[in-house]
């Protein structure tokens, strides 16, 4: 086998982040006094640099390098830009929070950056090995981050739980990958698609492999019945880490689901669509019902996140009908992608608000901590109002258009295939949205209708205030003008 020099230019963003994390490692080990501030800014610089590199280095054409392990395309570039952006936002939101709790050690910044690198590799992977590598890099960093507040038993317990269940899921994923390898003789996603296309798709081993791979993906997305870790991890981790776990990895997991299922196992769509249907239904129903019972806002957002992921799957599962893809498939997948992007925007703002209300020695955790926010700060109350109504899917906010496009995809699938169960899927989904609206409304209720019990003023840096406001306002702005973002999602999928 000839050695072919890989095209480093295509992988420049990942290489840059990897290099920068080593720089940070060096800087923080020598410069101890100002290490934290330096680490923070270097991290932001690394993410900004990666963002710019992604913007300017990638090809419009899909191209492979590193012997087919690494893929550069618009879809990946767009998601990587979003990952960089959201991790940068996470760092900014969490900065004062971590410092107040004295857990902003250099390792925190290191691991956040490694997690970001993992996500980027995962997004760019076109090969099971690189995919697994990215996934593990991301997951291991996240396990560590969840347990970073190591004197706090809840944090360590959450880390442990996450690790054990995550390792199990990784194992299942590997098992599935090995089955697919056994059946097709390759680990490269495009090759797998080609081999499955050539032989009959009903091969039992392939379907078995699919099931295990799907379990791994479902675990990372946190959908029912592989959701058990979600509420505990969200609840136990320091809020700044919860913010990270809840946001950018969902984009990476979406990319992985798309690459494996749509690009790799397209011919098995009939199988995985019906599996996803069950997962989506269970997530939407259980997520929404369980969220109603929560008094802890982090747990509530965890369950709401489960239901949102269910909604996203609705888009993913309505792409192929009667064995045909075509424009409807692009439509459906771009709606799922739009949903994932919208969800990340909303989650960042929601947990950002939770962090905003926390201060040294006090963690805002309960829905009741939002009591009377309208008296304490009308501005941030209205920001949270936007986020909550957006999550509930009320116009004019981005959450509405996310739900709309997903439902449209489901109904389109029902209309084309003439199968009424798609309609029932849509009806159940909207019914559960009403249940969902209840707990979002409750947050609005405590903010606006109740009197404040905690009168302390809201302390936050100017950067935090501006960024959080911009984040929440962007939800309203994209809600008013959603077209461009939808077009980008569709465009990147087409190429």
């Amino acid at each position, binding site marked *: 086998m000839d050695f072919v020099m890989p095209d480093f230019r295509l992988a420049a963003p990942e290489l840059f982040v990897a290099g920068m994390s080593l720089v940070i490692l060096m800087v923080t080990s020598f410069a101890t006094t100002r290490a934290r501030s330096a680490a923070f800014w270097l991290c932001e610089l690394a993410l900004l640099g990666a963002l710019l590199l992604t913007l300017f280095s990638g090809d419009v054409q899909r191209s492979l390098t590193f012997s087919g392990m690494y893929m550069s395309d618009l879809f990946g570039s767009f998601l990587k830009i979003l990952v960089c952006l959201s991790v940068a936002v996470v760092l900014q939101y969490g900065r004062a929070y971590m410092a107040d709790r004295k857990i902003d050690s250099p390792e925190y910044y290191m691991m956040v950056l490694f997690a970001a690198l993992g996500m980027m590799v995962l997004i760019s992977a076109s090969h099971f090995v690189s995919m697994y590598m990215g996934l593990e890099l991301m997951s291991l960093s996240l396990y560590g981050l969840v347990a970073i507040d190591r004197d706090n038993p809840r944090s360590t317990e959450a880390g442990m739980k996450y690790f054990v269940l995550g390792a199990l899921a990784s194992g299942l994923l590997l098992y599935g990958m090995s089955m697919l390898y056994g059946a097709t003789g390759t680990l490269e996603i495009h090759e797998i698609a080609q081999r499955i296309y050539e032989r009959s798709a009903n091969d039992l081993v392939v379907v078995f492999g699919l099931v295990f791979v799907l379990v791994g993906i479902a675990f990372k997305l946190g959908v029912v019945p592989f959701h058990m870790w979600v509420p505990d991890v969200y609840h136990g981790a320091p809020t700044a880490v919860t913010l990270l776990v809840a946001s950018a990895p969902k984009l990476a997991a979406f990319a992985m689901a798309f690459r494996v299922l749509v690009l790799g196992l397209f011919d098995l769509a009939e199988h995985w669509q019906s599996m996803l249907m069950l997962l989506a239904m269970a997530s939407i129903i259980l997520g929404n019902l369980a969220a109603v019972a929560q008094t802890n806002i982090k747990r509530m957002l965890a369950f709401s996140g489960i239901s949102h992921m269910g909604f996203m799957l609705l888009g993913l599962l309505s792409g192929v009908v009667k064995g045909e893809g075509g424009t409807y498939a692009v439509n459906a997948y771009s709606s799922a992608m739009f949903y994932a992007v919208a969800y990340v925007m909303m989650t960042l703002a929601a947990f950002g608000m939770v962090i905003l209300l926390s201060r040294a020695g006090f963690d805002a955790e309960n829905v009741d901590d939002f009591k009377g926010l309208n008296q304490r700060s009308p501005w941030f109350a209205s920001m949270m109002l936007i986020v909550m109504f957006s999550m509930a899917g009320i116009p004019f906010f981005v959450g509405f258009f996310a739900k709309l496009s997903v439902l449209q995809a489901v109904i389109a699938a029902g209309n084309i295939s003439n199968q009424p169960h798609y309609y029932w899927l849509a009806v159940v989904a909207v019914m559960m949205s009403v249940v969902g609206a209840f707990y979002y409304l409750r947050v609005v209720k405590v903010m*606006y209708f109740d009197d404040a019990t905690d009168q302390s003023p809201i302390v936050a840096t100017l950067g935090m205030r501006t960024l959080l406001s911009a984040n929440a306002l962007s939800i309203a702005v994209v809600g008013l003008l959603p077209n461009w973002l939808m077009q980008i999602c569709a465009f990147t999928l087409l190429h």
Partner: protein
Amino acid sequence: MTGVPYLSLAIWVPIVGGLLALTAGSDRNAPVARLIALVTALAGFFVTLPLYAGFDTTTASMQFVERAPWVTRFSIEYYLGVDGISMPFILLNSFITIIVVIAGWEVIDRKVAQYNSGFLIMSGLLNGIFSSLDGILFYVFFEASLIPLYLIIGIWGGPNRVYAAIKFFLYTLLGSLLMLVAILWLFMEAGGSFDILAWHNLKIGMTAQSLIFFAFLASFAVKVPMWPVHTWLPDAHVEAPTGGSVVLAAIALKLGAYGFLRFSLPIVPDAAHQYAPLILSLSLIAVVYIGFVALVQADMKKLVAYSSISHMGFVTLGFFMFNAVAIEGALVQMISHGFVSSAMFLCIGVLYDRVHSRQIADYGGVVNTMPKFAAFFLLFAMANAGLPATSGFVGEFMVVLGAVKFNFWVAFIAATTLILGAAYTLWMYKRVVFGEVANEHVKALADINRREFFFLAVLAACVLVMGVYPQPVTEVMHASVNGLLQHVAVSKL
């Protein structure tokens, strides 16, 4: 589209003004917020006047049309236009907004900026609902209008406001989400278009028509509200502040009825004909049964709330008899109810501001201390009961007239509302206003001040003018109602 985009102005002037009023911030700047609100409300009303002045009464087609792409990905358009059915409601809404701002002038002293802003934004959204010709645009305004009303009820409402606000929100959301599914289905059927007017010409099979009819019914019936999904309304009304009740009764209830005319009847006419007996029965139950329920209420606001349900039963009754007199009568009834019920709620608000009780039993002999108020209250009570020469009579009479053409027994049952309405309204009036001065509170009452006199007088003028000379209102409806009826008469199977 030519000239000034009046419809856009009618929508966005109040919304921008509402956001502007928010900047007044804390209650220290309350006068500023009130002033901004009043100026905006007046401006919002003036931009709607050209809609009436420039309205062409000879055509049933849409006027003042504005059309621009909004979300091209799903070919959602920013598509506005009005016909004779929707135009009067835009004027009514903008007019009521002024009244609401004035009515809350001194009464609301807490979070003034947010209060006024809420009403202004809602006013803009409601105008949006009446002028949207794109399915999603309609839905967006329809849903978004829940947010301000939810906050208004929840923040400034009575003791049980939280329960009422959440109940109101979830009830209406449940209905409208089913409508969303139907809208998406129509989008697919129409080959990727959310154009409501294009849906009017769509051929749809009977099963699909029935399903769509019920999906829309779920949304509109809750909004109207029809028996038996009316239970949110008394709660919301009782707990809402006066302004909230006024907007709820005058405008929000009309949305459901308007929806029937814009969606249900023209899009699925066969299903509408098929299920007309069902709607008629529900309407008659609302008219008669809810009338009796109103009779036994001890709370004035609840009584007027039930009377609203009963009156709205009349409206849906008029729609589903498919004749021009009845539909026009129902539309007149809607506008008249907009004036009368707002006036009734404002009257109760006047009493409540002084005594802080809505219980009929806490009053008695109010006429002795508030003679001017008693006179106004009497006029509105009479209008609510449907006395000739008030606006309340015109609509009811036309609907009953249409009903006689349709079926004698329907007309007979419907006509009992004239008796029931008189019974519950006048009995309440008697207990509150006449008799000896009942207690210390009533003794200490001061008659209405100039501000209150002003808004009651304006509404009284509206009620009387519409009662004596309804021509200007019915005239603009003729062409559109006839156009609608011709459309509904053609089967789409």
